[in-house]
């Protein structure tokens, strides 16, 4: 741990700890995992960018159907992800992160076209991802499912879910916090 710890100054670690939901040990663990992706590059520059394909290759993300959205939402630039972005992601997915933070990011993850609303196209994409993309649902069934979702949660009937509506539905979902969790 000593070698890893010398990468960050005390001040930096304090900053990270104050601004994320991870303990110092967890932060160093995250750093270790991240640097194992490409040790030479990280050693050279601890804020180097890793291309998305490398990051999604770690075993926690490999099987995740939303991994490209995770990359997009948490990265600061489309070229790749830095250690800080990765730390951000792990912090949001940690156990201590409050539900409000998770709901916020969940909304962004499910918003595929990035227009701050979850439209029916976004919903369609979510369902396709969840069911593995091989046409598990017929057109009619898919439409029925989307209509039902919108009927339940779209309060102002504008055919899309705004953040307020999404939050209203999801924050009371019993499994949300426990399912929105990644442990390194």
């Amino acid at each position, binding site marked *: 741990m000593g070698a890893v710890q010398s990468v960050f100054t005390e001040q930096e670690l304090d900053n990270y700890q104050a601004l994320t939901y991870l303990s110092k040990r967890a932060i160093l663990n995250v750093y270790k995992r991240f640097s194992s992706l490409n040790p030479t590059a990280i050693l050279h520059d601890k*804020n180097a960018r890793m291309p998305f394909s490398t990051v999604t290759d770690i075993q926690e993300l490999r099987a995740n159907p939303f991994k490209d959205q995770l990359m997009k939402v948490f990265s600061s630039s489309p070229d790749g992800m830095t250690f800080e972005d990765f730390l951000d992601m792990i912090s949001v997915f940690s156990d201590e992160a409050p539900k409000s933070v998770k709901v916020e990011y969940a909304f962004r993850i499910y918003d595929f076209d990035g227009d701050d609303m979850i439209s029916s196209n976004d919903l369609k994409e979510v369902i396709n991802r969840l069911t593995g993309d091989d046409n598990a*649902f017929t057109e009619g069934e898919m439409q029925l499912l989307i209509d039902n979702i919108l009927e*339940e949660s779209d309060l*102002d009937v504008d055919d899309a879910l705004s953040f307020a509506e999404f939050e209203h539905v999801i924050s009371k*979902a*019993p499994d949300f916090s426990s399912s929105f969790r990644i442990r390194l």
Partner: protein
Amino acid sequence: MDESHPLLTNTQGQGSLRAAPSAPDYQAFDNQGLVLETDLTETNTLPSDDRDDRGVDIGTVPGGAQQADISTAACEADTVSIVTIGEEQEKVALGGEEILFRLRLAHIYGDLDWANHLRRLNDKSREDVHVQILDKLREQPISIHQKIRLSRYLRDRMDTTSVSSLTSQQARKRQKSRRSKFKPSVGIWNGNIGTISAYFGSHVASYFVFLKFLVYLDVLMALLLFGLVTLPQILSNNNAAPEGLSGDFGVVSTSVIFFGAYSDTKWGFYDRPLAFFLTWAAVNVLCFLVIVSSMYIRYSLSKRVETSEDEFPFSTTVFSSWDHALTKPEGAGLRTNVIITNTKEMVREERSPDKSTCCQSTGQFVIRAVVNMLVVAVLGGSGYLIYLVADTWDSSLDIPRWLDDLLRTYKLPLVVAALKMFVPLIFDQVIRLEGYAPRTELKVTIARTALFYLASLVVFLLSMYEVSTQCIRDVNVTASTATKNRAVCCWENEVGEEVVKVVLIDLGQILLTTLLFDFLRAAVIKCGAFTSLGYREFTVASEVLDVIYGQSLVWLGLFFSPLLAAMGVVKLVIVFYFRYVTARMCKVPPRTFFRASRSGNFFMFILLINFFVCFFTMAYAVIELKPSTDCGPFKAEDHVFEILTSRVGDLPTWIRDVIVYVSTPAIVIPVILFLLLGVLYFKAKSASYTRVIDKLREQLRFERRVEKREVFARARIIYAGPQVSGTGSSPRQRQMTTVSSRTSITDTATTSSLSHP
């Protein structure tokens, strides 16, 4: 790295990096009123202090130089902002809340010129705003990068005392939350449970977590009993078992494992019989407290979870059914299948509500009635079978003597175990005929299986009662009519032995069933034959009921065999590893699942019911039955509880009078009535709360739908002049909708209150 005002180097020019997606000609609705905001040609660039490839990301101007000459009224709150826009920017300073709110939207609308806003705060509120922002900074959904910058900026401008007090406050809060969460990473089996949840999801893992809880409970009980009861007996080195005592386990029957070996005398100052009784009572009370408190904690954590489940089944399924903790591709694939099946079933239920004809529905009703009668028959039949076998044994069969002896000894446990093996299978198959929805199917099966286990326990107890009274009768009656040749009667020993036998056979049955049904099937499939058979699912509910049954046996026998808790621990450990290996190798995740969060409490509830049944039975035995006169720590008493009175000395008269008075109907009945009234009162209260919730929900819908449209209509009128009218999805309306999408519902309420001055 200390820069002096690093963020405020003014450079002219359009440094806007991330323009808002739909370049509007106005920027944003303030959430406090119908105001427009644009910002002007002021950009702030950052020196590249810590190499950001984002370049000018902090403090850019969203959208460029639009200058609208519109001024609108501000509203009542003092944190209102933005008034006139013209060439100069005469902005009233934004409050801390406002800045935080904009930070949340920064990822959509380009980045917030927070440096500017912060600078413009007037001095007296600046410190407070800084503290406010810094306090809430961690929860904001902006990147760490920006957070670090912002926090550094703020800290540089706050005086050190407030900074240090804030950091210490935050550190304290963090420690408190960590302590209160108490996720014991020091616990046993955490790695195994993690692997299970990676492959099967959190629902299956909840079974293993439950096992862990029971192991902890049993270890606690075993330690208490061993330390306070068994150890003194062993150390005092006099086995008090009477000479003529013989049991089914040979030498072990007279060892400290069973009741008979405990002496009824003091050991020095240590009063052994009293310790026996009190420790047993204390262990039971402790179990009760642990279970109830665990239920309470879990319940208060889940916070009335049922609302979302029943109200938004589709949304919650789609949005929260993916378990991000699943990391293995096989597990992920299986989870996908489960999700598909679940959603398909929901969709199909939706689609064809009840298209069955009259004949079909009556047919189904008849089938269900028949099946229910069958279930009752099975339950009654198995109960009677247990009772019958306990009473008699037909030894006229032509089997070798050793087998006959074995069967005679183990007849009761074998029958119980055999029933336990087959009856749940019967229930599983029979439920398919009934044609319920899958969720209901699960619930009904669980209810029936739980009832069956409970019934078999109760019948087992009754037959034990028979055993106990028989022993007393045998000794008192002449040898010719006695069922067994007994010199001494130690019925507690016999009951204890029966319980131990059932526990052992239960363990054997679990192993056998798993080997037969799971391993064999998996081996068959892996060898290529019958691949269409498919692996068995991991049915969490029936496994849990199994484990609860085992635990109830332990509670039952604890009085008669103090080391039974330790045996229970060993059994649970074996079961854990066995199930773990089986799950990894031969099983697939279940098709339908209870919500993981709800099932934890459900298991606890069933555990509690079982505990009550066991405890009340034992309490009856302790109070009513006469302990055997030949063995055990209570042989000198007429009733077990009299050990208290005889040892502690006679209680002062007034206490005795009070106790006698309190147990008369004159007190008991009013107390019961009062409790009933209390229950009714709370039920009425909760019903009224539900009504209030429904009304609020209606109000919410109204606000979103009707009020919002009204507000937009007014905004449109004000903005574009009276020539624009009517509702249409003009681009402006789309933008307005987009823009205001982030306003929380409560803010819409204030907006609507604005429109009704």
